[in-house]
């Protein structure tokens, strides 16, 4: 199957709703090992994206994603603002003027976004950040596609890997971001950014999956 522009717009809308439903949850995760604002930051950013989206919903996918990225950069703040902002800017540049995406395009979209996160924040695996959800997800997606899987089953493997990656942050001691200041006290808590990243990928799958 190929992913249409309308589905990308639908994904962003669903994601905004999911983040707003999880606002308290994400903020509570951030209060354990951070400064209790992650859900607030993400909701503020995606509310702004919702205001901007109607103006670009008939443009190409690259344009829609880049607008999302710029909007997040200028409204989220915190560490996650420039990181997710860069994610969407880069994913937008990667798909360019396309109006539909095949499964390889979808992989390229996500890969470019994650590369953007790595360039900006320089996380490595097991630093207890959002990258711990993205890295295994991308890897799972790559091997599923290489094994010849279709978009939906491949993406659901990626979501499962992101979920495992997210849960695997619990026993880790943070080495990046605010949580790193807690030293061993960061152990035993799930990373808020890894959680929002999982929700991002999950809502992409839920959007593409026929109900």
């Amino acid at each position, binding site marked *: 199957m190929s992913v249409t522009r309308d589905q990308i717009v639908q994904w962003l809308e669903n994601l905004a709703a999911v983040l707003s439903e999880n606002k308290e949850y994400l903020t509570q995760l951030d209060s354990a090992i951070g400064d209790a604002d992650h859900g607030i930051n993400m909701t503020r950013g995606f509310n702004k994206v919702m205001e901007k989206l109607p103006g670009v919903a008939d443009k190409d996918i690259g344009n829609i994603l880049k607008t999302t990225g710029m909007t997040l950069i200028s409204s989220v703040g915190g560490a996650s603002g420039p990181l997710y902002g860069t994610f969407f800017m880069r994913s937008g540049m990667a798909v360019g003027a396309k109006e539909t995406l095949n499964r390889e395009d979808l992989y390229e979209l996500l890969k470019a976004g994650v590369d953007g996160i790595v360039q900006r924040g320089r996380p490595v695996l097991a630093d207890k950040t959002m990258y711990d959800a993205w890295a295994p997800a991308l890897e799972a997606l790559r091997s599923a596609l290489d094994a010849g899987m279709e978009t939906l089953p491949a993406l659901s493997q990626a979501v499962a890997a992101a979920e495992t990656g997210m849960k695997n942050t619990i026993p880790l001691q943070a080495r990046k971001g605010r949580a790193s200041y*807690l030293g061993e006290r960061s152990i035993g808590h799930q990373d808020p950014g890894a959680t929002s990243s999982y929700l991002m990928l999950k809502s992409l799958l839920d959007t593409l999956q026929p109900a």
Partner: protein
Amino acid sequence: MKKLINAVDDVVREQLEGMASAHSDLLKVHFDPNYVYRADAPVAGKVAIISGGGSGHEPMHGGFVGMGMLHAACPGEVFTSPTPDQMYEAAKAVDSGAGVLFIVKNYTGDVLNFETAAELAFADGIRVQNILIDDDVAVKDSLYTAGRRGVGTTVLVEKIVGAAAEAGYSLDACADLCRRVNQYGRSMGMALTSCTVPAAGKPTFELGDAEMEIGIGIHGEPGQKRMPMSTADEIAEMMALEILDDPAYSRTVREWDNDAGSWVDKFLVDEPFQAGDQVIAFVNSMGGTPVSELYAIYRKLAQVCADKGVTIVRNLIGPYITSLEMQGCSITLLKADAEILKLWDAPVNTPGLRWGI
């Protein structure tokens, strides 16, 4: 939650509106994007000093905008870093052509947002320097953490580098001074109570009546360790010794290179304090602790410094870098040479600091 606010979403905007109307002789406020800037900016021929960070630390940074200190300050939401468009627009508004120095507290959010802003400003033809403040000795290593946080030294740096800009230092000279002053400063903070971010509605962490949190940052993030409550003397001594006995600290920072148009890594080592050092001592309230208690802390701090052969030559006591209504304090010691003292004593005219005028 019991606070003097109207609506949670309007807290930052209304605070800025209040500042603008209270201090119209010194500063102006631009909205969307939000930044506070000197009423007489851009100041011809002078390097522009810009800082910023989450709100909730008042008077820092907006209260330090004015002659002899900051040219602009970019406030984020409460305890949330500002966004790059704020720093970028502020830079355009206050740059006189002599360049812009960003003073950035070392928090991942602040760092990433300021780095993005520096790239935008540079692309627009503005010469820019981006210097980190990382003085919190509660953070021991830089290898397994995001490095020391920027705390009390920030206030002293803004005063000193602001005076240098006023005196006509070049952009590179301001940056070198800023880096050096940061390397001379060390801080340690503690909390007696938590604080409540208006948008969160409940305290960031719970702290029992008989407990205190040592090694706290300035965002209500939990500190390094929790201890039974003790006396002012014991607390002051413990914090002072953490600072005075802190060994050399090293880390790699990222700075902007205007010639290469890219980021460069710099390896920096802060030398420990020594007997014979002259220092500026700064005892700060986290917001909820009265000045009377700060003097009790200062009293013991002065004794500990004297015992170590360190001479306090200037001091600053009061709430300058706060965490909303948190009770607690921080101590900053800054090694001061003749140049730094001269710049410290230079006139300053801002809502938060004012002397010599």
